[in-house]
């Protein structure tokens, strides 16, 4: 959360989101193991992992394009979309 909100490097923000998703996954698996039972939490965790992978790929593609276009990967400096 801290990383997502404070970093000025898009890749660092991406790593922050990966950490958050991992924490959520860990909670899913831990609760499913000790409280709920079954494998539902693990299935959700698998989906979250796939989601995170896709998200990382798309985000990195965007970052690379951004870098080629604007020569920066800082979200603060990219104001092109603003009207």
């Amino acid at each position: 959360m801290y990383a997502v909100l404070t970093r000025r490097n898009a890749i660092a923000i991406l790593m922050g989101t990966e950490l958050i998703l991992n924490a959520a996954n860990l909670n899913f698996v831990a609760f499913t193991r000790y409280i709920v039972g079954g494998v539902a939490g693990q299935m959700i965790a698998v989906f979250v992992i796939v989601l995170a992978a896709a998200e990382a790929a798309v985000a990195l593609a965007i970052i690379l394009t951004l870098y080629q276009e604007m020569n920066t990967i800082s979200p603060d400096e990219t104001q092109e979309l603003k009207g």
Partner: protein
Amino acid sequence: MSSVIFYGFAFLAIVTALVVVTSRNVVHSAFALMVTLFCVAAFYVYLDADFLAAIQLIVYVGGILVLVLFGVMMTSGRLDMKLRADAGLIAPAVIVGLLLMGLLLYVARSDSAWKRQILVEDASQQAASHIAEQAKSHTELKAVRTTPVVRRFTASYSFSEAPDASARQMLSRHVEDTIRKTGLTRLYVTSVRSGRGSDRRIEVAVEKRRTTLMDPTRNLSAEELDAMTQALTSVIPGFVPESVQVVIAVEPVHMLLIEGVTDQAVSRLTEDMGLRVVEDEKGVVGLGDSVMMGEYLLPFEVTGLLLLVALIGAAVISRKGVVV
């Protein structure tokens, strides 16, 4: 030992996660993230989620991280960060790498990290002392314990009316939950079926999945059996409690649990002494019934090694290509 390792991983995960969010150098964050994700994979193993641990290693540590590093190195032109390592760091890096490689080979090849347990039926109850005698002269027999084995619980529940399939499923779920809450984590409900002679009775068979031992380190006392019976009786919300009748059938068969045996020792036990091997299980100490960390540890390790090589190769290639 197992919990010490767990706390070690937890500490490492927290520290490296802090490094990820606070480090000014993105490359440092990326490598710290790798360690964090690896620790999370270790937690999955502790949570009996082998498959998820493997997926975590492959997708995150193998895939996403290479992608992130690739991104870092592609966009590193303008950022004032140092990608090239000092030449002086190469020697310690090589030493650490060789140490890790040695550890990997040691774990893969040595017998000591493997725990092989076999259960031998000891009908005469004489063989135990004999084997224990042998264990002193043969180092491959590391521990011989005789232990009574609880083979199977059968709990029967009676209902005022014949329960349908969904009620049956619910009952099985509840019993499973209770078993987990009693701390006997490795028992599983094997079947839920209508009882003999009456469709108003349901029998739930509970069994340990791979070995039939309750807990290899201790014998099951009468109080524990009572507690388990108590717990099983109190399970079922939605069912009439006074009509619940729990019958736990325990067949104490005297068996030997032998750890750390080699193939020669097994054949000697079975051929020379005429014992019947009931269970033969290989695994790493402290990881329980985990299949991927037990039986298939070596292929799993090889896969991990391959991923590591790919990771390092990607780092090297992008370094040479981008940073001139």
